[in-house]
């Protein structure tokens, strides 16, 4: 017999919380867990353990409640469940999108100076030879030629050089971290709030994959005749979007 707040009861309370939204399969899992843990406790007492130790031993052998609850399928979708899962999925996609857009700006900024130096060295930023010797470059006496062209580079595909890409990246990363923390410590981590793996994978893979192809195409166009100021940002953002899409596809395939 267990007492209030005994190890088995604490475990079953945690599993009950973790199984929220799983409906009949969750109720059955909980009932079988209780039956199993009580039988294991009785066995432990029969082996000479005191009741408290026998319960702790039974719980330890049963495994982590979070890991077991994750294997119980969610209840058939209702409108409320679909909205909950969509909200969490939307949160994840929005965070990833902001982090992607802002991070591509940070990377473009980091790569911009060597990129501009490469353009100057190869005369790819203008039609004429000796692009750094023309009268309009540089307008500011203290500015070197590569620095001038670096200043002309767009940091993000749409938004230009003045776009607050670093702030956007931090907001996106903050959203993702907040989601991970919320799923660890609140009911947002239960099956009721968890989007299906393949669905979430598609929600990432389709838009990011499409954007990756589009930006790569425009990046090639921008680099073909004479190098445009937005070319680097298109390539960087496109590459990052492609990486996210590939990771999403792989995770979706693993979840099916």
């Amino acid at each position, binding site marked *: 017999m267990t007492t209030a707040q005994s190890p088995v009861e604490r475990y079953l309370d945690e599993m009950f919380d973790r199984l929220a939204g799983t409906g009949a399969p969750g109720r059955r899992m909980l009932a079988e867990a209780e039956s199993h843990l009580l039988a294991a406790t009785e066995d432990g007492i029969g082996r000479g353990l005191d009741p408290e130790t026998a319960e702790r031993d039974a719980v330890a052998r*049963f495994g982590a409640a979070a890991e077991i609850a994750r294997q119980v399928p969610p209840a058939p979708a209702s409108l409320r469940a679909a909205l909950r899962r969509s909200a969490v999925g939307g949160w994840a996609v929005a965070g990833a999108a902001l982090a992607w857009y802002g991070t591509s700006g940070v990377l473009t900024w980091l790569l911009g100076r060597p990129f501009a130096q490469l353009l100057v060295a190869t005369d790819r930023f203008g039609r004429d030879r000796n692009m750094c010797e023309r009268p309009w470059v540089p307008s500011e006496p203290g500015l070197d030629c590569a620095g001038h062209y670096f200043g002309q580079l767009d940091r993000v595909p749409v938004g230009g050089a003045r776009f607050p890409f670093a702030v956007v990246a931090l907001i996106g990363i903050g959203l993702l971290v907040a989601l991970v923390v919320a799923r660890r410590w609140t009911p947002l981590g239960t099956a009721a709030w968890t989007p299906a793996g393949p669905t979430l994978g598609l929600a990432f893979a389709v838009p990011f994959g499409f954007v990756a192809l589009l930006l790569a195409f425009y990046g090639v166009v921008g680099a073909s005749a004479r190098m445009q100021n937005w070319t680097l940002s298109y390539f960087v953002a496109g590459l990052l979007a492609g990486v996210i899409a590939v990771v999403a596809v792989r995770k979706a395939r693993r979840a099916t």
Partner: protein
Amino acid sequence: MDVRGHLDLLLLAVLADGGPVHGYALIAALRDRSDGMFDLPEGTVYPALHRLEREGLVVSHWEPAVPRRRRVYALTSDGRQARVAKQVEWRSFVSGVQSVLGPAAGPVPA
């Protein structure tokens, strides 16, 4: 030893040889028959049994018992066929691995 990739076959084998059995006894049989090698987290067996039931390989029902009711699992005819098929697949896999490894080797020289 990590048995997650082979848990289905192990459960089907225990059910095929032991007949209808409740989860706690099934897990004990799995541990005893493997001499303790397959000492997996016991709770993970239940979701696996539920999945096998959804696939039509096992059936289950609550059995009233003292001091508490228990869910008893039994193999279906599809489950028996699946056990044989998975067993053949496993033996082919082991045979292939054995062919690659060759005869049992002694200690690795330093």
